[in-house]
């Protein structure tokens, strides 16, 4: 470390992370609680000769970043629930056409206009299944500004490595809270740059033919290779195909390229998880309260631990099973009706020992509330 220190909002930490990762193009449409990302980038990107656009809506925003990405730019948009809903069809296009890009959803209460200025973690499953059709997706989160920064860098790296859209699921508290951020020196965090084909002009280039390591080298639009990009099932040249073996092959590829790399894609933190009798599993801002409870109770000798998930999709089932193995109680702390709870239940050996400690009134769950719920779960009364 040893870089510039700032006292800033989480949204700005995301902006700093994106710029560090090499963001070149941003398009967005204002919506609370994500708007500061657009405002800050409207100032910062032109200074780097990058492009900032305020589009006519969120659909146009995500479409524009996909177009920009095809020319070789690292691209991002930012929104909240209602806008994220509008983006779903184009998100599926980016999945199908394998276009690297980053979509930030600073979650607020839903459904509908919901709670415009209050927090929730209600979009976890929308991130997973919001767009139609079978597919795999990468969605990441964090609970403090230093991690918001580094997970944003990870998001760009994963997008390039796996040629995929990556979703960053932050929330209102994280986005607006002010906290210290130390910006790493250039080179301190690894950056994945666009993998471009080395094939010269005139040699048949296959935009959708994976190399042996599974990666697919790209060629910028406007470069020497002309090819087709489509949301239809397509062959290795990008041309539409309904041939069953091509359709099946592409579906497998789109799923396997993510699901077979869960280990590489998993980011998490753990606090006293190994000998925990009660293991909390949380993520995003609710993990802050969960961590507070764990630290506090450990001082009193209670065997409480925390597994903080930063990768929500693909769900790190192996990790969760392993960490939950010896715990008597597994308690998922989240700000929704139990979206990660379901994944945890299917991951562990004994789903009956998994409970939910949640809060869905638009305010952050407090350590006291978590503690009270824990006492009930443990049969000790409030």
């Amino acid at each position: 470390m040893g870089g510039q220190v700032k006292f800033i909002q989480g949204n700005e930490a995301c902006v700093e992370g994106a710029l560090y990762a090499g963001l070149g193009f941003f398009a967005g449409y204002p919506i609370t609680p994500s708007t500061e990302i657009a405002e800050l980038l409207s100032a910062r990107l032109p200074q780097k000769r990058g492009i900032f656009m305020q589009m006519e809506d969120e659909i146009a925003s995500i479409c524009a970043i996909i177009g920009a990405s095809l020319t070789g730019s690292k691209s991002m948009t930012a929104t909240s629930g209602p806008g994220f809903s509008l983006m779903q069809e184009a998100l599926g296009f980016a999945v199908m056409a394998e276009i690297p890009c980053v979509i930030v959803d600073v979650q607020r209460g839903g459904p509908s206009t919901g709670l415009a200025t209050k927090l929730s973690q209600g979009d976890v499953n929308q991130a997973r299944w919001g767009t139609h059709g079978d597919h795999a997706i990468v969605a990441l989160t964090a609970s403090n500004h230093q991690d918001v920064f580094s997970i944003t860098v990870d998001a760009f790296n994963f997008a390039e490595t796996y040629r995929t859209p990556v979703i960053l699921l932050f929330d209102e508290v994280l986005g607006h809270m002010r906290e210290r951020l130390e910006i790493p020196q250039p080179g301190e965090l690894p950056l994945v740059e666009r993998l471009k084909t080395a094939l010269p002009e005139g040699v048949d280039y296959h935009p959708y033919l994976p190399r042996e390591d599974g990666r697919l080298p790209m060629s910028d639009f406007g470069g020497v290779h002309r090819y087709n990009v489509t949301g239809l099932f397509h062959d290795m040249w990008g041309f539409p195909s309904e041939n069953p073996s091509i359709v099946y092959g592409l579906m497998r590829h789109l799923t396997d390229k993510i699901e077979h790399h869960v280990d590489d894609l998993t980011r998490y933190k753990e606090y006293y998880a190994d000998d925990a009798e009660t293991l909390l599993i949380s993520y995003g801002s609710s993990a802050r309260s969960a961590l507070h409870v764990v630290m506090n109770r450990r001082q009193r000798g209670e065997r409480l631990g925390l597994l903080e998930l930063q990768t929500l999709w693909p769900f790190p089932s192996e990790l969760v099973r392993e960490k939950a193995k010896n715990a008597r109680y597994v308690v998922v702390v989240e700000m929704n009706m139990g979206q990660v709870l379901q994944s945890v239940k299917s991951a562990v050996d004994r789903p009956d020992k998994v409970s939910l400690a949640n809060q869905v009134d638009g305010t952050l769950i407090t350590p006291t509330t978590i503690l009270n719920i824990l006492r009930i779960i443990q049969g000790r009364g409030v």
Partner: protein
Amino acid sequence: MGTREYIRERFFPHLWCPGCGHGIVLNGLLHAVENIGLKKNDIVMVSGIGCSARISGYLDFHTLHTIHGRALAFATGVKMSRPELTLLVPMGDGDALSIGGNHFIHACRRNIDITAIVMNNRVYGMTGGQYSPLSGYGTYATTAPYMNIDPDFDVVAVAKAAGATFVARSTTYHIKQLTDVLEAAILHKGFSVVEIMSQCPTYFGRKNKGGSASDMMEVFRTRTTPIASKEKAEDPSLIERGVFEDREAPEYCEEYHHIIERATKGR
């Protein structure tokens, strides 16, 4: 070079019905591109979804076949990142003006240097003949069996009102004019809209007793007239063809470049 050079021959025969007007648009467009002498590597064609949108797959440019109605938004991202490229965006009437209407008016307003081609057959061809916002009151469609009561609007008037700096109309009957206006549109610096009245004999024709493709094109001949012609004065119901708007205004990519200059001054 010859227009054949621009085609991906292995994808022929094309999927359009016999007599479909969209192939004539393709023909005119390729002649326009050839006349200008554009290089294939410098052209990006972005399309949405529809029979018209399938035009992109047949052409040996950088081609991006996107989702219904959003082609202009994708194209905006490409153009802003690589302003030196030529962006061609062919769209159906439903694609451009129904689901994509919002993107259409805002692309006009920004005056970004993209050529939008509206292949207007007054019907949703791809989905089998439902009425579009361009079908017009009194027409019939698979979703208007008793009669369509939706009024249409004038693409040219919408484009002009929204700020497009080049606006033209032609038909598949007037292949020479079609080629000329497309050429002028591509050369124009700023957002260009070319509406091309195209025939869908399979659905619009059949539902509206339009007869064969050639009958429908005959109507394009008899029911249209050059802008401000004597015939128009005598019969105001005739549809005008030609260039309705051709003016200079700040182009969006160039304006953005000034923003970069402001932001980087003294840095």
